[in-house]
């Protein structure tokens, strides 16, 4: 009852025939069963470096970042048309609100744009609709528009491509911008409370918050709700640090001769956890909230923050975060580089309004890390700086213009073009000092930009999605997490009850993932390890 349009069936047949002819000598390097999801890649052979074909047709591109990237995208389109004059590109813009839901509905209807900007958390929703293409075959080949000579995937700063692979290990999201998340603090308040240097360890953080509280400030404003990520960020980064020692136990399928070296961040390049590995690890109790001592410890540690949070945790709202910080109602916050411009501009506005006495100095540091003082098992290093992929590009599965989308995307993410776009950003008024860092390597940034210490210190393979609470999908597990998290913080749930419920939700989500990716899941592997 859900039938493909006749047009797209014909196209698929043609592409399949064509691919049969063209890809004779080219084998698929990834063991993905991509054939089940899409027609064989037709352009793979032609994307060998040096051969740029002349393309024609129409392409639709959609983003939710018109204000941040609109002008640059238009410039990129103009540049692309210099190389490919026969391709007409239409740039559409959609609001960020309900972006994922709307695009997903459009994917179901088969009318979504061909190339779409997306956040990592949106990918699993799109996958449910079988809406986006796996791009590994293309990523393993060189990008014809890039001068680096490397495979396309190597033009990106690692490990951000790997961390955005889906549960089956496929890459469906091509990285675009990065975000670094750190602790903003009010320098004036710190001075008044007698804190000389910003805290580096968790214990220092608690001490500093105590001092702030005694000086009459609210150390932290947070909402235990789905629109305030601060507490999940703390939680997930702690869990990641604690689970690092188990990496080799979880990553059962890996490249030959690979071992885990915690202080070499590059050592995990190319490695990723797939859903079957995670399922096995869960069933063995390694990452099960109800059975893992690390998980419980992380919960206990975070709850130590409670005295320094606002009282109305359940009624507070994430949208208040910036205004609370600006009005000095909260003097620390855990936020991303994307709020640098707005924090500065709001303070500037206060100054213009003649309220200069309310303006304050602020700075950012990495979020204070737990140490072996807090948990002895923390032998693979403390918290990594929380940096990751902010957004990337996906290509529609049902698109008739895959070739074009791919070609334009390769052009867009070629280091030369990206550098040019960042130059343009610098020239534009509002974004000059702090654009989102690019996920493409080799981009230069303005000297005046605020320096952040974003480089990963320890090798880490994320178990959960970047920037999310410890959940295995962005649907039901995510919603259940909020409910349970609220229960925990309002003491309606004891720690044990929380862990039990979390465990049940996680398991259900993993099982749903197994079902969804049943074509890629290796049941024999699971059975053999769970005997």
């Amino acid at each position, binding site marked *: 009852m*859900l039938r493909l349009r006749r047009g797209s069936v014909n196209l698929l047949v043609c592409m399949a025939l064509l691919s049969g002819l063209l890809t004779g000598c080219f084998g698929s390097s990834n063991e993905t069963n991509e054939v089940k999801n899409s027609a064989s890649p037709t352009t793979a052979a032609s994307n060998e470096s040096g051969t740029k074909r002349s393309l024609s047709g129409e392409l639709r591109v959609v983003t939710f970042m018109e204000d941040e990237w609109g002008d640059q995208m238009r410039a990129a389109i103009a540049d692309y048309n210099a190389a490919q004059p026969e391709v007409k590109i239409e740039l559409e813009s959609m609001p960020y609100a309900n972006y994922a839901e709307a695009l*997903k509905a459009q994917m179901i209807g088969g009318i979504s744009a061909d190339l779409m900007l997306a956040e990592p958390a949106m990918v699993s929703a799109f996958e449910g*609709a079988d809406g986006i293409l796996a791009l590994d075959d293309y990523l393993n080949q060189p990008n014809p528009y890039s001068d680096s000579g490397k495979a396309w995937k190597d033009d990106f700063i690692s490990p951000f491509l790997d961390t955005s692979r889906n549960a089956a290990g496929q890459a469906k999201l091509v990285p675009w911008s990065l975000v670094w998340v750190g602790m903003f603090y009010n320098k004036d308040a710190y001075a008044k409370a007698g804190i000389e240097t910003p805290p580096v360890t968790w214990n220092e953080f608690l001490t500093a918050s105590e001092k702030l509280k005694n000086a009459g400030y609210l150390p932290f404003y947070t909402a235990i709700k789905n629109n305030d990520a601060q507490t999940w960020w703390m939680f997930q980064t702690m869990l990641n640090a604690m689970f690092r020692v188990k990496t080799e136990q979880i990553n059962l399928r890996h490249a030959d001769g690979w071992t885990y070296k915690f202080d070499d961040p590059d050592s995990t390049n190319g490695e990723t956890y797939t859903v079957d590995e995670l399922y096995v690890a869960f069933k063995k109790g390694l990452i099960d909230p109800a059975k893992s001592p690390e998980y419980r410890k992380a919960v206990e540690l975070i709850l130590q923050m409670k005295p320094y949070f606002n009282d*109305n945790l*359940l*009624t507070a709202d994430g949208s208040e975060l910036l205004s609370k910080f600006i009005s000095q109602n909260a003097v620390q916050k855990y936020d991303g580089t994307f709020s640098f411009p707005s924090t500065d501009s709001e303070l500037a506005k206060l100054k213009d309004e003649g309220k200069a006495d309310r303006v304050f100095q602020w700075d950012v540091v990495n979020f204070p890390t737990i140490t072996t003082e807090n948990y002895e098992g923390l032998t693979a290093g403390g918290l990594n700086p929380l940096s990751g992929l902010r957004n990337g590009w996906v290509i529609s599965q049902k698109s008739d213009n895959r070739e074009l989308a791919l070609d334009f995307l390769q052009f867009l993410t070629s280091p030369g073009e990206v550098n040019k776009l960042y130059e343009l950003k610098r020239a534009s008024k509002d974004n000059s000092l702090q654009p989102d860092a690019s996920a493409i390597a080799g981009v230069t940034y303005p000297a005046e930009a605020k320096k952040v210490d974003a480089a990963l210190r320890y090798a880490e393979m994320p178990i959960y999605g970047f920037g999310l609470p410890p959940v295995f999908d962005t649907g039901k597990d995510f*919603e259940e997490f909020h*409910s*349970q998290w609220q229960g925990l913080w309002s003491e309606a749930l004891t720690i044990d009850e929380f862990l039990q419920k979390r465990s049940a939700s996680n398991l259900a989500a993993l099982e749903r993932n197994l079902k969804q990716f049943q074509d890629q899941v290796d049941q024999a592997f699971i059975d053999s390890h769970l005997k």
Partner: protein
Amino acid sequence: MRHTLKSVYKARYLYLFLLIPFAFIALFIFYPFFRGFQISLLDWSGGNRTEFVGFDNYRELFWNEPLLGRAVRNILILAVAGILQAVGISFLMAWVIHHIRSAKSKYVMRIFVIVPSLIPAIVGYLLWKKFYEPEGLVNRLLGLVGLDFLQQAWLGDVSVVVTAIVFAGFPWLNGANTLIYLAGFLQIPKEMYEAAKIDGATSWRTLWHLEIPMLAGQTRILLLLSLISLLQNYDNVFLLTRGGPMDASVVPGILLYKNAFLFGRYGYASAIGVSLFAFIFILSLLSMRLSKESGEKVS
């Protein structure tokens, strides 16, 4: 049977005319509804894989859904309160305005009554979210009048959140309903008012024995319409609490929305939708039956 056939023949042009609206409805409402029903028999996430599961979704909904009981209870509370607000307050307002002497004032009031409906409702909900904050207006007012013991986290406390939602939107003036009632009041012939005055009726008696019965028709409609829309409604709950805290304020509409748009479980969500429809249908039948009986009693 022959009699019926004869009537059908006599009314043939009527049917033809009625074909137009029913064609619209059949195409754009009934057909999607039946498709929705079909989907409720499947396990479908929007992708290529669909699996026929019969009534499993319904089984899961009525047997295994932990939030179902709460959702039904909450929506009944909100619906009853909402009807009192949507119908009762508007009637009151229309009655007061109707009896104002100056036609000019009435004209102005009529305009002012509907203007608030012209701005996006979300502004009102956002405000009430703020009012309900621990340091917000509601608690401060309670403190001022000495009712300190009532101060609490209205939207953050599982035991009061539904009550808080009920009272949000005070004074619950529904401009549209007020206008409908006003139009109805204007239809009451002046002679009847004269007659009542000659009989020496006070304004309360006039209200009870003349005005309310004369407006029974409007009341019945507004009651039905309010009931139908309140039972499906979830906008206000979603904006105020998103179903929280800890799913305490969940209503069927939210269950439906979350399962469809956030979890992508279209089959299960459709089962919720069909069940919700049945629920609304039954309750509206009941309410129509009840209001007809009480209408007959009054006259």
